[in-house]
């Protein structure tokens, strides 16, 4: 329990009372890097939305430990970059600054220290060059960097990323995953990352959650991402 930030016990998740995944029991440790894999519609996004409190579980429970400061756990959420409405005239900096809103009371101005910290997060995410440009006009990869900076600006205990490399080329994918791995180690935060790209993630993740046919298979990349195990998962033979 001491090392576990999040514990899921016999969790059942889904929409409108219809379960997508059932009987999920697992724990997310501090300083861990967990990749969530699975086909489209397997429940990857449903799982992270439930963890973030955006959806209520259908059954079971989620226990969250306190952060190292004794405060409630802070999630830094990086949603898919394409979901934002371009009608909002916000710069990359203004989007990243939203990460600090959890620490600034309603009706108060954002202190200069928080602005400076946001700039630091943008710099760390390699997004300082385009931070003054319109967020809606940035490329997919640039938006992802701004959103990662925003998540870092929350001072998270857990970084939750929903397909951060979707629509990003192989080189940029490598750079983004390297950055996330480095950030996890430097800031000692847990990382939960949803992806389809198991080839890229196997070098970074310490734990894999593979969602398949309503169940969660878990293990280390070396155990789960072997040709034999993958063939078993997909119920096909190996020639």
């Amino acid at each position, binding site marked *: 329990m001491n090392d576990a930030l999040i514990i899921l016990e016999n969790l059942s998740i889904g929409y409108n009372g219809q379960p997508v995944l059932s009987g999920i029991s697992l724990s997310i440790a501090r300083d861990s890097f967990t990749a969530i894999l699975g086909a489209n519609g397997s429940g990857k996004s449903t799982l992270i939305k439930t963890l973030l409190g955006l959806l209520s579980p259908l059954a079971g429970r989620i226990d969250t430990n306190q952060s190292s400061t004794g405060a409630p756990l802070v999630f830094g959420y990086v*949603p898919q970059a394409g979901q934002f409405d371009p*009608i*909002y*005239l916000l710069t990359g900096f*203004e989007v990243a600054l939203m990460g600090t809103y959890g620490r*600034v009371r*309603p*009706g108060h101005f954002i202190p200069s220290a928080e602005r400076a910290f946001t700039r630091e997060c943008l710099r760390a995410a390699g997004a300082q060059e385009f931070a003054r440009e*319109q967020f809606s006009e940035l490329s997919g990869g640039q938006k992802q960097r701004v959103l990662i900076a*925003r998540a870092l600006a929350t001072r998270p205990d857990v970084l939750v990323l929903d397909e951060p490399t979707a629509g990003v080329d192989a080189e940029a994918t490598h750079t983004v995953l390297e950055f996330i791995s480095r950030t996890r180690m430097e800031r000692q935060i847990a990382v939960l990352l949803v992806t389809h790209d198991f080839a890229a993630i196997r070098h970074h993740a310490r734990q894999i959650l593979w969602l398949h046919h309503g169940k969660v298979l878990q293990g280390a990349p070396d155990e789960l991402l072997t040709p034999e195990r993958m063939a078993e998962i997909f119920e096909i033979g190996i020639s």
Partner: protein
Amino acid sequence: MMASLSHILSPDFLLRNSVYTSVLIGFSCPLVGVFLVMRRLVFMGVALPQVSSTGVAIALSVPLWLGVKLSGHPSESAHMLAFIGSMTFSLLAILALAFMERRGRGQPEGRLGTAYVVAASLSILVLSKNPYGELGWLDMLKGEVITISDFDLVLTAATLTLVLATLGLFHKELLLISFDRPMAITLRKNVVFWDVLLYLLIGLTVSMAVLSVGPLIAFGFLLIPALAAHLFARNMRQFTMLASLCGGASAFLGFWIAYQYDLPVGPTDVVLLGVLYAAAWFIAKLLP
């Protein structure tokens, strides 16, 4: 033309309350209109003023239904009654429509269209059976901005000041829940509270605008300045300021033109806003 301008600007001008109220509404409506445009609730900007005006019609008919006599002209008590009716209907409608929007079932345009047409028909039905309807209340619903008392002006100014102060104070929270609701939830913001606050501000502004200038003009000021400003603005501050300036300036200019050429003020304002929007669209297309 300049003589009529000096008349309007004179402190002794007979219709000065109408000028002040028009300009107040012109400056304020776009500030909440910006949120309607950003949240893609433009049709709500059409339906809501109409529902609000139905609230006025029903509230003003309640004394008649209860057998209580009111004075022939809209008095302060009648105005307060109208304000309560307008506010109640605006809030109930906006909360009901927002709730259905959140559930995500059916067609939002269909719901808003139905709300608009039913509200408009209900207003006509209620007023057709109300002898007071011919004594000024229809004028109020149409937006004849000429009979604004000191009490109306003070009530409008006080309400709009409250709306502007709240919008300014909680701008970052209202922007966050509009731009990225899931992020707001993960930051442990009470999104339902902030949603309700925003709807309350929209409802208050719409109610005041409908009472002062009528549903058609309220719709014009809510949306057209915000749509025009979005063509040129580069950030949220510019967007809000430009929309508000466009609304305020159009309200004053519209009043001036209407006074000069003896036209009804409200429709003049809306046509002027339409012309400005068209001009803004062409200019934006020409710009690199």
